[in-house]
């Protein structure tokens, strides 16, 4: 009896095992039908509404949302797991922009025929970042760029205008921090904990000094004076107290807390913190007392680093025709407008930023549009993860005073060359 039971279980395992292994073949994957959309959880409930609208129009090609884990690491792990097992559970997937090259090179996502998508009207940089070797693999869904938040009340009292350069920012700080009501405030902070945000802040500093971490072909450019100037801006900031010493533990949220508790005068962060800091329920001590401008640079406005998510079609999906159409729908101008009305995520089409209703709702839109237009994507490398780790390792050591900027940059130049060459 027991043996029969065991045999039955074993047989069931074998059968289900067979059931999940996808039949290979090019013809079978371009079908239509109900699909899934693996995406980041939307706290505002806007994405489910947009999906419902699609489902009402396409009853035979309905979309089911699957939430990905929160945080880029969890999201990445989940997507890789599905790809490794060649599972067709996900049809449309949400990836971070810097993963585009890797996912394309590993054949985890399919090429998207340009003619099937309405590509006019997107910001240029995120769209370019969606290419790999001249072919399109994903469509920008959300984007984002760092902006400089500053305290309008304190700047006004000291009679200074928002800074455009690092020197102006330091001069503004000197004046404002001399005010009695600004006692104990620090000048400036970004995100300097050892995580992806440090790569973002570093490439932003290098870009704002007129340099770039890697050129268009992926070759590192860190042996240049502008790269040195960029890293020096961060390193001297820590050394001379322009940046508070505990900023070495700041991620986005720690930085936001410091700014909204009135501890820093200037703060580099994304758009999402704007409504949070304007909250009048007492959680923020600066509502109505701050504004945004583009990040400052060495000799003029700086160059921000692009954030953002893209939508791609899983290579293991069997209903790729529906998946492509759904991406087209999600990234169309009408959907993006509706989306922006429901949630503050920065959209990827410039026309959204011209909408008067949205401009009234999100006063920072003109600045954000300018920031995104001038922003640069992170290095497009197949081994982006290794590149980012190497950058974090070296930059963190410099900020902590363990290495010199020259030493770190020459090490990085060598490491990034190896990483770019290996791929």
């Amino acid at each position, binding site marked *: 009896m027991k043996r029969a039971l065991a045999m039955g279980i074993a047989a069931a395992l074998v059968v289900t095992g067979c059931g999940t292994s996808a039949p290979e073949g090019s013809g079978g994957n371009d079908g239509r039908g109900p699909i899934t959309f693996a995406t980041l959880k939307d706290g505002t409930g806007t994405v489910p509404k947009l999906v419902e609208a699609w489902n009402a129009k396409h009853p035979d090609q309905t979309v089911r949302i699957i939430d990905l884990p929160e945080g880029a690491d969890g999201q990445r792990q989940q997507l*890789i797991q599905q790809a490794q097992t060649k599972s067709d559970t996900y049809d449309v997937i949400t990836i971070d922009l810097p993963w585009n090259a890797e996912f394309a090179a590993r054949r985890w996502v399919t090429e998207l025929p340009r003619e099937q998508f309405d590509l006019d009207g997107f910001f240029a940089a995120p769209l370019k970042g969606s290419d*790999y070797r001249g072919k399109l693999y994903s469509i920008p869904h959300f984007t984002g760029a760092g902006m400089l938040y500053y305290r309008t009340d304190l700047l006004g009292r000291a009679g200074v205008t928002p800074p455009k350069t690092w020197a102006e920012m330091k001069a503004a700080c000197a004046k404002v921090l001399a005010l009695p009501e600004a006692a104990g405030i620090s000048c400036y902070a970004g995100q300097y904990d050892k995580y992806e945000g440090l790569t973002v802040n570093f490439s932003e500093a290098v870009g704002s000094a007129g340099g770039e971490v890697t050129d268009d072909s992926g070759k590192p450019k860190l042996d240049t004076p502008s790269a040195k100037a960029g890293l020096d801006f961060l390193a001297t900031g820590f050394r001379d107290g322009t940046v508070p010493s505990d900023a*070495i*533990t700041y991620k986005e949220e*720690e930085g936001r807390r410091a700014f909204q508790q009135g501890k820093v005068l200037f703060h580099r962060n994304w758009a999402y913190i704007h409504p949070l800091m304007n909250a009048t329920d007492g959680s923020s001590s600066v509502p109505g007392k701050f504004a945004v401008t583009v990040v400052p640079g060495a000799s003029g406005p700086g160059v921000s680093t692009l954030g953002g998510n893209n939508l791609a079609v899983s290579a293991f999906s069997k209903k790729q025709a529906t998946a492509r159409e759904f991406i087209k729908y999600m990234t169309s101008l009408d959907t993006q407008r509706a989306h922006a009305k429901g949630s503050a995520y920065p959209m990827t089409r410039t026309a959204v930023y011209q909408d008067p209703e949205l401009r009234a709702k999100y006063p920072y839109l003109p600045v954000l549009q300018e920031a995104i237009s001038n922003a640069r994507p992170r290095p497009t490398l197949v081994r982006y993860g290794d590149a980012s*780790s190497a950058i974090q*390792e070296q930059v963190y050591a410099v900020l*902590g005073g363990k290495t010199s900027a020259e030493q770190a940059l020459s090490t990085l130049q060598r490491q990034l060359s190896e990483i770019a060459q290996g791929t």
Partner: protein
Amino acid sequence: MAALLLSPTLLVLGLVVGYPLLAAFRESLYRGGDALDADGFMVSGDRFVGLDNYTEALGSRFWTAFGNTSFFTFTTVAIEVVVGTAMALVMHKVIRGRGLVRASILVPWAIPTAVSGLLWRWIFQSDGVANEVLATDLLWTSDRWAAKIAVIIADTWKTAPFVGLLVLAGLQLIPNEVNEAARLDGAGAWQRLWRVTLPLVKPALLVAVLFRLLDALRMFDLPFVLVGPQKGSVETLSMLAWSEANQVRYGPAAAYSVILFLYVVVIAFVFVKMLGADLLGDKRKKGASA
């Protein structure tokens, strides 16, 4: 006959222990495609690389992680044994509200490690409770020695209750007569603790220590959540394996895991041999038959 009766157990063990071990070992001898073809696609397919993954694993990052793993294991287990035993002695003496005390001491153990990692990160953030209470300005979650201390404190908070409970179970097995006899013979409280209670509770204590050793050697979630990945001051061997796997390098990740497994085996073996932890109850059986 005995073998036949045991065969279902052996089969299950083979499936859930033996197979994954062998599969991980096999994986550690291969490397996935890391070169690109002319069109920029990654060449797929694993190739056999022998022990290359192992020789390349033994870099400075490995030795840092190895040092951290050993350091955390020995310091946390030592502290937890002392604190846990003290907790057990207190719980043993409590007469009123016994159940409540025991349940409340178990709370840290019941909280998932990742969640307690988050809790302690709030406590240790730069403007957090720890700096407030200690009147310090330490950056606990940055990559410095303070991060090590933060991990040790959080781990002790979490797992000392576990040691405490196991020791308490041991304490309750000691008959009261032994203590009374010692008292009649004129032994003081201190002498009774060292000469009577602790030797009798030793078997339970050794089991607790062994469990904690094996657990602490695999430490991952607490430093990962509390301080963060890629920070040399708290990176453990498990975190190293994770970071390789996260970059889709399963061969090197498996190599780190196998090395960690062997390390755990060696520690467990030495511990059982040297201190004679009576895991299988051999001594008790011998004592009964004598």
